[in-house]
Each structure stands twice: as C-alpha cells, then as structure tokens.
C-alpha cells in the first residue's frame, strides 16, 4: 500500500504536468487556417445541417441542394444529429466552424439556443443560411422560407375542416416541442381556428419528436384517449406518415381524417387506399436548391442579405431578398388522389 500511494502521488503530479504541457502545446499551435470575418472566404463548400438525419423531407431538400452545388461547382456535404435536439446541432456547428466551410445551410431545432454557436461560426467567416425552420433573425445571414407561415397554417386548417365537415374534435401531431416552424404554424392554426371555425375544438397537441416510432405510438394513444376524435393534423412529414400507417390498420380508418404536410412518395399508398384524402407541401427539393444558390451568392459576396438584394438561382430564376433577410420560395401545394401520381419526391 505504501508503494502504491507513493507511486500514485508521483503519478498524479506527473500526469497533471504532462496534461498541462499537452494543453500548452495546443495553445501554441500555429494560428494557420482559413476564415477571417467579414468578406466571404470564397470557398464554395456548402454543408447542409438539417434538424436530424434519417428524414425523407430533408433527404429530398439535400438532393436539391446537391444538384445546385454541383451546378455551380462547389463541394456538398450533409451532417446532422440523429435526434432533433438543439444541443445536438451545436456540436456540428462548432465542427463546421472549425473546418472553415464556406456556408452552412441549417434547419434549426430551436430559435435561440443555436445563436451563440452560429455567431461564432459567422465570426470565423462562415455564412449561415437557414431554411425550413428559422433561428432568430440576428443569428443568420438569410432565411429561405418555403411559404408564408400564415398560408401553411391556413391550408392545413382548410383541409381538415373540409374533411370533417367543419365541426368536431381535432388534435395536432407535431414534431419536436421547440422547433420554430412548428410552433409558428401551430399558433397560427389556433388563431385561424378561433377566428373562422368555432365548431372545431383542438383537444391536444402531442409531440412525436420527428421519430417514426414515437409518432406512431402517440397516434395510437391519441385515438385511445379521445374516442370521438374526428381529425388529426400533422404538420410534419414524419408524423403524418407514421399516423397514416397506424390509421391504415386500425378501425378508425376512414372515420378519423388525417391531413398535414407530407411527401407524395411516403403518402401515395395512403391516398390510394383512402386513409388520407389530401395533404399539402411545397417542393423540398426546390427549397434546398434555392438555399444552396443563396449560400453561393453570400460566399461570393454578391449579396449581403439586405432587403432588395437579388441573386440568381439557376433553374428557378432570380430571387429577391425581402424583409428580415427572408427569401420566399412560393406557395404550398395540395396533393390528392388526382395529382399524386405526378410527383416523385
């Protein structure tokens, strides 16, 4: 025990000394590397950072982005956390800042939690473009909005009220509790319901965390808890697909209406067998494409994100930056049995 203690003490001191030496080496390391603040670094590497990986919607938007990036000769990459949490994204933003990429195209899991990391990246010369879900406006260079939030909310409310006959109980199956876009749309939906649909009652908002199994189980729980539920609105592609799958094999098929935002490929089965009548979305591929071109314009220094800036977006034409450094893609589109065969995403 004697020798053990003595050895341990010496070992402890030696260890601490060595660690300090290592850390000092790290400090003294060369200050090389690219990226100083201000002007774009000119490096056309664009990395997509969606809310989480393994999500068909973000796969499609990345495909669109990749197409754009290859068109203008940059380097494309996609990274992301496995689950949609804010702290998961922070580590990736840090890494990308370290690597000194040209731009990050980000769909944020939270409006404020990412700000510090994003601003640090921007100080290092990385341009940050948000798409799909925004951060607060002072911590990004541009926001590519797929459609006006009011329009997205209204179209889903219109669809569900049409499908349930404008009266009855509905529930919302959302994604993660902090997602900026989800909360914005849900709030607008509630306002719209209160204003124009007094006979529809929103009983609950449940969160499926954009995880398929969780969304599936939450749908089952909803139907069990509210046996007289008439409709479910799911403004997330993962949620609506999981809910549709549950409804398809349950006794509620056809009796409980389901709508929301979904991708045609995932929903085709359910539309064809009548589980779902109609749903809405925009083209995520176009969204990613536009976001990539916006990133390029920022890197090249063509635009700074000020209102009125215009930039070229390849096959989509020319786009103008609006208020709050936001670029609008277009309007949402309704998919139903008649047109769903025409799309492949």
């Amino acid at each position, binding site marked *: 025990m004697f020798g053990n203690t003595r050895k341990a003490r010496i070992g402890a001191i030696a*260890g601490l000394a060595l660690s300090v030496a290592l850390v000092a080496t*790290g400090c003294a390391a060369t200050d090389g590397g690219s990226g100083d603040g201000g002007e774009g670094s000119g490096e056309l590497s664009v990395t997509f950072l969606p809310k989480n990986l393994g999500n068909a919607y973000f796969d499609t938007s990345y495909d669109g982005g990749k197409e754009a990036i290859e068109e203008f000769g940059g380097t494309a990459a996609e990274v992301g956390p496995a689950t949609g949490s804010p*702290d998961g994204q922070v580590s990736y933003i840090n890494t990308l800042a370290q690597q000194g990429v040209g731009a990050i195209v980000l769909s944020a899991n939270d409006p404020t939690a990412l700000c510090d990391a994003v601003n640090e990246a921007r100080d290092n010369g990385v341009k940050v473009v948000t798409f799909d879900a925004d951060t607060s406006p002072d911590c990004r260079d541009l926001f590519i909005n797929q459609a006006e939030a009011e329009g997205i909310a209204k179209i889903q409310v219109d669809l569900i009220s049409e499908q349930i006959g404008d009266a009855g109980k509905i529930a919302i199956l959302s994604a993660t509790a*902090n997602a900026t876009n989800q909360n914005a749309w849900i709030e607008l939906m509630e306002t719209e319901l209160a204003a124009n649909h007094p006979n529809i009652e929103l009983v609950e908002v449940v969160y499926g965390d954009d995880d398929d199994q969780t969304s599936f189980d939450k749908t089952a729980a909803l139907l069990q808890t509210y046996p007289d539920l008439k409709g479910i609105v799911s403004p997330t592609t993962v949620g609506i697909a999981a809910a549709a799958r549950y409804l398809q094999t349950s006794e509620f098929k056809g009796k409980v209406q389901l709508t929301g935002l979904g991708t045609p490929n995932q929903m085709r089965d359910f539309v064809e067998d009548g589980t779902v009548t109609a749903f809405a979305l925009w083209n995520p591929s176009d969204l990613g494409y536009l976001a990539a071109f916006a990133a390029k314009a920022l890197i090249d220094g063509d635009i700074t994100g000020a209102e009125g800036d215009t930039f070229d977006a390849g096959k989509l034409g020319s786009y103008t930056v609006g208020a709050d450094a936001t670029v609008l893609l277009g309007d949402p589109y309704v998919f139903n049995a008649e047109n769903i065969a025409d799309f492949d995403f």
Partner: protein
Amino acid sequence: MVDIMGALAPATRTYKDYSQPLWRRLLLSREAAVIGALALVIIVSMISVKSFSKPITVTYLFLDIAPILLIALPMTLIIITGEIDLSVASIVGLSSVTLGVLHQGGMPIEGAAVVSLLVGAAAGALNGFLITVVGLPSLAVTIGTLALYRGLAVGLLGTKAVTEFTEFWTDLAKSKIPGTTIPSVVVLIVVLAIVFVVLLHFTKFGRGIYAIGLSPETARFSGIRVERTKFILFVIAGLISALAGIYYTLRFSSARGDNAAGLELSVIAAVMIGGVSIFGGRGTLVGPLAGAVLIGVLASALRLANVTSDVINIITGALLVASVVGTSFLAWARKSRSRPGGKKPEPLTGAKS
C-alpha cells in the same frame, strides 16, 4: 565440511527481489499507457486531420468533455470503493431542468443554480441512503434512480427546452482564459481535480476508500466508517453531477429533460479505460482524466475528418471492452508467470559441494 544450517536455510526473498526501479514502475503503469496513447492520437491527428491543429480545437474539445471530466472525479472514487453510480447523467438532466424551470419562472440564475446544486446533492443522498442504510446493491438502485431522476426531469419540462438564459452566464460558461484558447471551465476542473487528488491520496478518507474497495469487512474492522464514506461519496457525485448540469445548460443555452442522456456511459468508459478496476480497490485519478481526454480527442479528430459521428461510439465501446478484458488478461498472464521479481529463485538444494 558442509554448512548444513546454511544450506538448509530457505533462500528468503527480500524486497529487492520484487522491486523495480521507479521509472519502470511509472512507465509500465496503466496510466502511462493511456497518456502515451493520448499523445500518440494527438500527434497522428495533427498530421493527418485538416483543421485539427487550430487553437480552437482545444476550445471545443474541453467545452465538450468538461462534464465528463467533472463527473469522472467522483465516479472514480465510487468505483474504487466497489460501487457504481449509473444515475449521474440523470442528475445532470434533473439539475439542468431545475435551472431552466426556476429561471423561466423568474429566479435569477445564481439562486436557481444553488437550488440545482441542492437538488443534485439530495439525489445523491437518496442513492446513498438506499445503498448504505437499506443495504441495496448499487447497480440496482442506480438503475432505478436513473429512470426516476430522468423521469422527473422529463416530467417537469416535457420535451420542451428552456432556451432563454442571461447572456452573462452563457458567455461565462463558454469564455476562455484570457490570452489562450482554453475554456475557463478547465480552471474549475483543475481546481476540483486537485481537491480530489488531495482527498484520495493525501488523506485518511482517501486511504479508507481504497481499503473499502479491497475488502469492506476488513476496512470495517480497521475502524473505517464504511457506510458513512460511501454515503458521502454518493452525495458528492450528485453535487458534481448537478454542477456539470449547470455548466451543460449554460453552454448549450438549453435546459431540456433529455440533456446529457447517455453521459454516464462516457464517464464509466473513461474511468475504465483509465485503469480503475471494476472490482474496486485499485486505480488513480490521472487515468480516468487522461481517458476522458483521449475519448474527446478521438471524437474531435473524427468529427473534423468528417467521419460519421457514431464511429466514435464504436471505438469507445471497443476501447472499453478491450481495456477491461486486457486488464483481466494481464492479471492472468502475471499470475501464470509466478516469478514476480523476474529473477529465478535460488534452488533449495543442500548439495553445494
């Protein structure tokens, strides 16, 4: 004439037969192996991974592994006594949520932080109570409290995250030591590490910890207050976990019930890789700290090299298994080499003529 007495006297072995020079004892130790591996990984990464050699790497590295370093300190002590605490990550989450909920309700961060620390200590005390007073096995208890504390954290906040925190404190959590790129939280870690090193190696309490790990019964008969020691260790673990939770929350500006889920595995992996024996009674603090830094550097280098983030999990898991199996294997190998000093004993034959 043959010296019968001399020939019959057994060749006694002295300390010198067993001794090895200090340099050899230090260099052949487990801790030295980990530090050596760490140095190797750093050098290889500096050469082969682009952007690794930037000073900012150190910043992010320590910001990321600070919770692991913090919690590894009391966890090492607990494992040396032969127990284990799987609920540390849940206490991190619980203190994070407490901080968030209280701050959102209007309490200033200072007050909320104090309450979080108390909550962590209380959680540790519950662990300690169930283990030392009721006498339950620590594995079972901490699996239960892992679920309980995480459940309380998620129950309090749901899946929503509180993300509005006073900028002063979030900046402080991420601030660096002036003039360097090392985060200030490292100062906290170094201070606590020194405290723990003193506690473990220079006090009676620390020697008691080793004694308990080697044989609780013997320790009890030697006058060591076994139950009190273990109880104190679990309370300390809860306190430090809460501290790590406060840091985590402020660093990510996000208090969420699911924060730090799975952190206990990283801590235990670091401790095991650092040479602490799962059976208790052996180990130092240097090893686990070096182990944590090793895992952190590997993760950092792999992330920068654009390798999928979960390869680091494969490597951590494999390292953990290899280090534990390796220790076991070495012990077996040493036992079968029954000559400790490496010198052949003198043959006990009387025929010297």
